């Protein structure tokens, strides 16, 4: 047996997988209406290709990829496009986003489609294009466009292809039941992926809590180059980085990709989607979703068309709304709560968890951190969550980055073990968002600074150029003048200066042509005379002392003003005389 490695930390939460494994996969049928978000994957949203009112067929492309890291979207059933508008989507924010809404006609008419005759005759680029056109995004939960991941980094050779059948989250059994029931399709998909990547080895990793899946896979893998590797159950062994360490003993460099160490990881569900696309020409229009939790009467796995409202699945599973206070998409460790049951199933919806209030009770109020270190023992990334928590509360971004906050995979193991019930992951998410925002702001201000400096440099350069031109012109003129003088003619510069003087003199003469009727100095003198007269009268009449004083003050003030005006006038005369 192949050697497997261990990764640091990890936890053993109650698995709760048996509930939804009692029944085989059941088709969820065609709901009356499908709501298809344009962004069901990581990357740019897709761009609609259809108009409201248009008839679409099952499998018809209704939106194209909106960029390199993006995938197209296909109609999961035939019907009429009734709206392209914002609808609530399954997203942690609980916000609405653009969706294409199709009213199904119930006929489920396929568009013409067919698979390739033999994928072994196809070039890798050709197959990648088909995978991209089929709208396949990672089915494990992250939703990264599969073709982009498979195309890899230029220059990087892939030695190991890892197929992830770990499904370490409690409750979820979508991959488990897929491996049990459709192992041969998984192997078909793996054969195509191997043909594209040409790896030296293909490892299919499964946790040892899925014995039936392991039997089925081993049977299907007989005679192929695929090694089914089992290893002890521990959360989060299904995390891409952790699975790589378990199977190869290597660690993905921080900030890097598995391709950097010659590895590509794909989920078993993605392998089936690839087989459907290449062999049968069917784009990604449905997936397996687990519906489980104590608030449904019959937990099970559904094969469900993308865009099917969660409410439709809940009804099929016998939902008991009175027992439920949260809807979770994904598992209890990393899943997020949904705003309501009207949101649709998307490409990444591996599980709809509807726990009863006693099953997953609301968390009690957090107590102080006693730095017990259980979180550090549980952390699969070997971080010090208790220190990160401390720094996050103090908003010490330098320390957070120094303690490698961005290597946190948000698996929730630290929060799960925390005896003080502190929502640690929530703190890390908030801190990451803060730091990313700061980086963006910093980038912006840096750009602004560069722009400003570039502008300053340009202005200085232009000024220099103008100066150089002026100097050149001056030189040329002087030369010309010298030439003219030498020839005994009139100096042109001197002539220009004289012309300018004559013009100015004429202007001044025109300005003095209409002097003011009474000069300000004259009016001040008249006022002074009046005031003096009034003062003399007052003294003679023996008026109140206050009035006398006021009059004296006003005389003095006027005298001062006159003196000032006279001085100013003298100055003006002097200046004029000098000019």
């Amino acid at each position, binding site marked *: 047996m192949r050697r497997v490695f261990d*990764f640091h930390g990890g*936890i053993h*939460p*109650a698995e709760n997988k048996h509930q939804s494994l009692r029944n085989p996969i059941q088709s969820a049928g065609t709901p009356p209406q499908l709501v298809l978000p344009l962004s069901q994957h990581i990357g740019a949203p897709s761009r609609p290709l259809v108009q409201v009112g248009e008839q679409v067929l099952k499998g018809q492309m209704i939106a194209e990829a909106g960029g390199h890291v993006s995938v197209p979207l296909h109609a999961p059933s035939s019907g009429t496009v009734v709206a392209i508008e914002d609808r609530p989507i399954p997203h942690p924010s609980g916000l609405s986003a653009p969706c294409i809404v199709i009213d199904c006609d119930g006929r489920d008419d396929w568009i013409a489609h067919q698979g390739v005759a033999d994928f072994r005759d196809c070039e890798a680029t050709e197959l990648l294009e088909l995978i991209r056109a089929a709208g396949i995004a990672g089915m494990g939960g992250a939703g990264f466009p599969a073709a982009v991941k498979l195309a890899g980094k230029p220059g990087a050779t892939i030695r190991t292809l890892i197929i992830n059948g770990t499904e370490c989250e409690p409750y979820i059994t979508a991959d488990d039941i897929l491996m049990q029931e459709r192992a041969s399709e998984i192997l078909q998909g793996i054969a195509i992926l191997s043909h594209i990547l040409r790896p030296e080895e293909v490892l299919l990793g499964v946790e040892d809590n899925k014995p039936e899946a392991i039997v089925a896979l081993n049977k299907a893998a007989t005679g192929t180059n695929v090694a089914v590797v089992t290893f002890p159950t521990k959360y989060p062994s299904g995390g891409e*980085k952790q699975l790589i*360490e378990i199977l190869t003993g*290597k*660690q*993905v*460099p*921080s900030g*890097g990709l598995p391709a950097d160490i010659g590895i590509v990881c794909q989920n078993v569900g993605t392998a089936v989607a690839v087989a459907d696309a290449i062999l049968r020409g069917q784009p990604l229009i449905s997936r397996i979703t687990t519906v489980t939790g104590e608030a449904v009467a019959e937990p099970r796995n559904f094969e469900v068309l993308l865009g099917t409202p969660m409410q439709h699945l809940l009804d099929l599973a016998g939902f008991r709304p*009175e027992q*439920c*206070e*949260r*809807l*979770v998409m*994904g598992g*209890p*460790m*990393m*899943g*997020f*709560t*949904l*705003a309501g049951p009207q949101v649709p199933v998307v490409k990444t919806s591996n599980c709809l968890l509807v*726990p009863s209030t006693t099953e*997953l009770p*609301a*968390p009690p*109020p957090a*107590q*102080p*951190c*006693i*730095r*017990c*270190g*259980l979180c*550090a*023992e549980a952390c699969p*990334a*070997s*971080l*010090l969550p*208790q*220190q990160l928590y401390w720094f996050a509360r103090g908003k010490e971004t330098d320390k957070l980055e120094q*303690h*490698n906050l961005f*290597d946190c995979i948000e698996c*929730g193991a630290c929060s*799960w*073990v*925390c*005896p*003080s*019930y502190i*929502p640690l*992951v929530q703190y890390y998410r908030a801190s990451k968002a803060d730091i990313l925002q700061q980086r963006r702001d910093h980038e912006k201000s840096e750009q602004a600074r560069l722009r400003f400096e570039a502008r300053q440099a340009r202005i200085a350069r232009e000024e220099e150029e103008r100066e150089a031109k002026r100097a050149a012109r001056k030189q040329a003129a002087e030369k010309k003048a010298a030439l003219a003088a030498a020839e005994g003619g009139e100096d042109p510069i001197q002539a220009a200066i004289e012309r300018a003087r004559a013009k100015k003199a004429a202007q001044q003469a025109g300005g003095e042509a209409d002097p003011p009727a009474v000069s300000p100095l004259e009016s001040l003198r008249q006022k002074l005379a009046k005031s003096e007269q009034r003062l003399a009268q007052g003294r003679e009449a023996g008026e109140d002392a206050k009035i006398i004083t006021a009059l004296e003050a006003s005389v003095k003030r006027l005298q001062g003003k006159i003196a000032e005006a006279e001085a100013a006038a003298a100055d003006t005369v002097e200046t004029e005389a000098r000019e």
Partner: protein
Amino acid sequence: MTLIRVSSPHAHGSVSTGSVMRQVLLATVPGIAVLTWFFGFGTLVNVLWACLVGVACETLALTLRGHSPAFYLKDCSVLVTSVLLGIALPPYAPWWLIAIGVTSAVLMAKHLYGGLGYNPFNPAMVGYVVLLISFPMQMTAWAPPRGLADVPDLWQALQACFQPASYDAVTMATPLDVLRQNDSLLLEDLWQETAQFGRWAGIGWEWANLAFLAGGAWLLYRRIFTWHAPVAMLAALALMAALFHDGGSSASGGSPLFHLLSGATMFGAFFIITDPVSSAVSVRGRLVFGALIGVLVYLIRVWGNYPDAVAFAVLIANFAAPFIDHYTQPRTYGHRKAGGEP
């Protein structure tokens, strides 16, 4: 159906701070039982009175700080502090001594720094050191063990605590004192001539240490703390004792086994230095932290002037904890070792 929106994870393990503290309390029972057997009810009275004062101080502090005492008392942390201090104090200590110690521990060392989780120093040890410096006479008076004198009964123990004036205390030097004051006898002769010594260490003390070791082992089994700090401390202490054993001469500091089973060694290793709040956080950090305490305990015991060294050693190491943390950050996934492959 009203839906709540909460952040993941939605599931939680079964461990809570209160349950951790209660298990620590439970693990002290064997040690307290052995101390009570050998030295009488003094320790038990210490512990109970300390708990009473501790809860009163905690309630007062929480009320003054505007917190709900009902919610915070549930974490049982004040009981742990009080019980540990009660065990550390000499049996038959007067009530006021215990009250001053507990008050210093809870109000000064814990709440003045911001309460549970914020104290840089081990509260019980702060309380102990305050008393040791202020009342050296009361703090160095240990009762003789069963077999060397009559063991006081519960009534006498209560009298010693609450009517100290009317209680005639019988005291005897502890084995650690005897060894420190020895400068003429070979260890072997000292062992023969001194009544306090038992099979491996002091009578009573060796069993008390083994009982605390048993309680600590149970806590390890329950994964309340990791082995790193206690093992590092015991190993460092044993290594120091072996280095300075000097073949059992009159200048010997005592054998490794003697040090491991004397004074507060096991109590300190499993109940004091494992206080997570004031210790180093990483695995390597806890190894360094524990080893530092082991070395300091030996230095202070053999060349210092105090009856035992655990309290001072722990407080000095508490000072060093942030510094140790800074240099012992573990290698994160995907980061290179110094000069090696990731």
